[in-house]
């Protein structure tokens, strides 16, 4: 007789089932927390001090890494395209192409990645360790709603500050692209800037800002929610943080796809 429970098929199905189960539970938790946050927001009562604190943290703390990543990306792109385009006699298009790529896609998504690694992971791990050391239970016993106290300010700071982060990083990225184009392909700054405006529409800027707001809110919500539902000990704090990062990455990729197909298809 073979032991059914030891067969590869059984174990594979079992593992798959656990994964699906995990997925659904995480999705459910995020949905539930979002509803709670939304409910609190409808009362329009937000702790201003906590909100300002979180906003500062979201933007200022993350800015060095965000700027570095976005700047590097745009430098690499300019390095690749500027000499090529100049060779083909299309040097006038370097500015508009850079602006298009940065504003429509790269700044928001690269800033998103930077924010996930800087801010999302720290939200998840700090809230998770509060959960496993009973600090969240203590908060409930003291009749302070942990969603309102911990998650709402973080969520709002994501929604509000992410567009600013993206604006700053886009400027920084384009500046770097202009310098690199000038150095590698002798495209003048004036040329770069005037060409930039030809490639861009108001719609692009509007969509980029809206999208970054969605990214910020999503990253903050997923990170907080993954931390909040943690049970167990140090090991689970690690698992939750990983889960928050992975889910945030996937979520902003999905958002990006949705935005691209809604606004540009």
């Amino acid at each position, binding site marked *: 007789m073979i032991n059914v429970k030891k067969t590869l098929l059984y174990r594979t199905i079992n593992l798959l089932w656990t994964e699906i189960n995990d997925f659904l539970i995480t999705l459910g938790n995020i949905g539930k927390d979002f509803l709670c946050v939304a409910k609190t927001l409808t009362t329009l009562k937000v702790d201003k001090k906590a909100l300002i604190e979180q906003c500062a943290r979201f933007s200022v703390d993350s800015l060095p890494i965000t700027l570095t990543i976005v700047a590097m990306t745009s430098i690499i792109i300019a390095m690749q395209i500027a000499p090529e385009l100049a060779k083909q006699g299309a040097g006038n298009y370097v500015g508009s192409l850079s602006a298009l790529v940065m504003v429509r896609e790269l700044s928001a998504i690269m800033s998103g990645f930077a924010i996930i690694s800087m801010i999302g992971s720290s939200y998840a791990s700090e809230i998770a360790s*509060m959960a496993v*050391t009973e*600090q969240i*239970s*203590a908060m*409930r016993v*003291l*009749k302070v709603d942990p969603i309102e106290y911990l998650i709402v300010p973080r969520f709002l700071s994501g929604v509000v500050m992410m567009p600013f982060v993206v604006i700053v990083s886009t400027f920084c990225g384009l500046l770097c692209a202009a310098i690199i184009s000038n150095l590698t392909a002798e495209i003048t700054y004036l040329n770069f800037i005037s060409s930039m405006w030809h490639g861009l529409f108001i719609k692009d800027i509007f969509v980029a800002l809206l999208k970054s707001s969605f990214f910020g809110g999503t990253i903050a919500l997923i990170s907080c929610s993954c931390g909040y539902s943690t049970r167990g000990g140090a090991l689970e704090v690690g698992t939750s943080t990983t889960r928050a990062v992975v889910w945030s990455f996937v979520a902003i990729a999905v958002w990006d796809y949705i935005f691209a197909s809604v606004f540009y298809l």
Partner: protein
Amino acid sequence: MGIEVKNLTKEFSGKKVLNNISFRVEDGETLGVVGFSGSGKSTLLKIICGLLYPNSGEIITSPKDADIAMTFQYSALFDFLTVFDNIAFPLTQRKEFRNKYSREELKEIVAQKLKIVGLEGIENRYPSELSGGMQKRVGFARAIVTNPKIILYDEPTAGLDPVSSTLIENYIVELKKELNASCLVVTHQLSTIKRATDKAIMLYEGEIVYKGSTKELLEGANPYTRQFVSASIKGPMKIKTL
């Protein structure tokens, strides 16, 4: 009447941790809860303060929405806030108190509570800069800052030196009188039972094996309490490794 617990049952993944428990605690009365490690004492307190749901049974408090405070076995201080902000937390964050107290008033209240637990002047320190026993006492101060009507203490004196223990025990008695509160004290320490409680229950394998006065618990002939008080390995109760 302060708290009434009726036919409470709680299971964790099929294992009955509390099995049909009933008792009541009147206003101005302190009930001690003793029992082996793992007998469900902390679980009982968490159900009473609403952190866990029972599988069956009910908790009746009077008044119905009574302010229930609890001190945690492992303090559960907010490690991102100073001692001052920890103790003032319910007063600054809870809806009903928000903006009710000025900074000066808060300072005064916190200083007074810290004095009670013998820790004057540590307002600006963070929990990680305190010893375990100090954290415990800060947790105690935070729990009582709102003058609650029902107070649950989970091992308030575990890990404290005998003198600090006496300080806390005396204060449990004093506070109960002052607020006419109903209290539950979970403890392993006989000195705490003796000094701070009026009556007591003992839990074993999910059931109440003793319910009566503290004096009777300490001196009576009940085989369970006898074994517990004399710390004997021989008796009706066996420690199981689960």
